[in-house]
């Protein structure tokens, strides 16, 4: 259970209660805003927005930081590449005839901020929205494609079944690891050949079990009258409430402000004057 990113955490907050379509649309809009060429002030604004969202949604900062974990190496790598390639801005310092420019640092910082915002916002979405609700939202957005005979419903059903069985398969994997460890498999300190053998001893039974599960599941679905092509009704209906309208308006305002001000730097300048 250490898959931190994307794990739904059942707190009760206004963001949890929003329609998943609202949240998905808002996320996409904010991501678009982030990828405009923004200046320092707009980024600061978006970071504040993001922090506010984290607070409102009751998502733990720790779990957001955990989501950053796989990023550290990439960020370091980026910094090195940028320092080597970018020669804009002021020369900051020189080591053994190699000069590092401020442009490189700024460029890297900008990318890091963008990535961090992206990951934080996505984590907020996935921690406050049940995977299944997200699936419904995606299905809803794709539904116009049904006219083109695109099987949106079948795809959504497949995704929701996959989501349903992830915890089951995860549990089974853990049990298998223990069972094969009891038969002497050592995935940590064994020789390479032993490690490969050990992996096979996990993967084969997992596949066998997954196939058997899918067969039994198909039987159970058919027995309860499921017919892929046929019309069905829905128990879960997405519920677009007034709070969603407000949410979307706020989001539109944020996106508009950040993009507009990036084309009109005088706004920020006014702010600075006002601050002074």
């Amino acid at each position, binding site marked *: 259970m250490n898959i931190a990113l994307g794990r739904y*955490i059942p707190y009760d907050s206004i963001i949890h209660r929003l329609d998943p379509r609202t949240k998905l649309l808002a996320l996409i809009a904010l991501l678009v805003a982030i990828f405009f060429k923004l200046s320092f002030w707009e980024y600061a604004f978006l970071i504040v927005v993001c922090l506010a969202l984290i607070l409102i949604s009751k998502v733990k900062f720790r779990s957001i930081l955990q989501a950053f974990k796989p990023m550290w190496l990439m960020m370091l790598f980026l910094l090195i590449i940028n320092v080597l390639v970018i020669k804009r801005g002021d020369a900051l310092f020189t080591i053994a005839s190699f000069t590092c420019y401020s442009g490189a640092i700024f460029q890297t910082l900008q990318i890091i901020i963008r990535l961090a915002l992206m990951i934080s916002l996505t984590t907020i979405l996935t921690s406050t929205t049940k995977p299944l609700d997200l699936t419904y939202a995606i299905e809803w957005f794709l539904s116009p494609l049904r006219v083109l005979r695109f099987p949106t419903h079948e795809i959504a059903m497949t995704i929701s079944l996959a989501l349903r069985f992830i915890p089951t398969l995860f549990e089974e994997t853990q049990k298998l690891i223990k069972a094969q460890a*009891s*038969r*002497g498999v*050592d995935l940590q300190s064994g020789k390479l050949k*032993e490690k490969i053998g050990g992996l096979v001893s996990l993967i084969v*039974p997992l596949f*066998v079990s997954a196939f058997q599960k899918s067969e039994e599941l198909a039987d159970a679905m058919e027995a309860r009258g499921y017919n892929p092509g046929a019309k069905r009704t829905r128990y879960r209906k997405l519920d677009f409430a007034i709070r969603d309208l407000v949410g979307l308006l706020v989001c539109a305002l944020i996106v508009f402000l950040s993009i507009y001000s990036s084309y009109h730097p005088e706004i920020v300048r006014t702010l600075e004057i006002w601050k002074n």
Partner: protein
Amino acid sequence: MPIEFKNVSHTYYPGTPFEYQALRGIDLVIKDQSFTAIVGHTGSGKSTLVQHINALLKPDSGEVRVNDYVINHKSKIKNIKSLRKLAGMVFQFPEYQLFEETIFKDIAFGPKNFGLEGKELEERVLKAIKLVGLDETYLEKSPFDISGGQKRRVAIAGILAMEPEILILDEPTAGLDPQGAKEMMNLFAEIHRQGKTIIMISHEMDYVLEYCDEVVVLKKGLVAAQDKPINIFSKAELLKGLHITPPAIIDFANRLIANKLPIDIKKVFDIESLISEIVRVKGGNK
């Protein structure tokens, strides 16, 4: 050497919303060469307990001693493989762990990992498959082409081929039909007679009464009782509190006693012994 648990606690997923304390300070000695049953309600910590014996899990606090091995929170066990060879673990529905192309290879997998090879390995495999009641014609078959009951036998043979001194069984008869279960239990009784320690998690109290010489009852991560099976099962009040249904025969005898029939519960272990007790008491009354 007995297996000793000293104040063992274990918590799953500490510090997360899924945190769950499965063991809350277990003190327990499992006698050498005993056939010990671990019983208790689902969620009482049975599986967590036995997984400490071959160090699949480590205690958060306290320690487990198995022969010369000490398993505690800090220790990195030097020779974990030989501990796992010493204490063979058969999980629930072990047929799901089969994976090799042939049954021979699957049974050989464990002993091979523990360094056995050649002629010796072959002999081990042959001995193990015969022990579980299959013949050598099975060895070249695929483990996926045999019946469910046979798969379970092959999986158990894979553990027996490691020749463990301690055999840990997690509900070995679950899902088997009465005859299959009976044969399985007779197999474990035979292994026990060869001088091995057997630790079995079970919900089948009839088998516990018939085969085991010691019962450990767990409740909410603690040892609630430990005694000979008949001593545990004859205490109707104790059983109720532990949510354990006694074997049908003992339940029946307990009901007779509750209705003031003075039979000696210690003499009841199967239908014949119950009947002769009834006849003795009723005959005496006449």
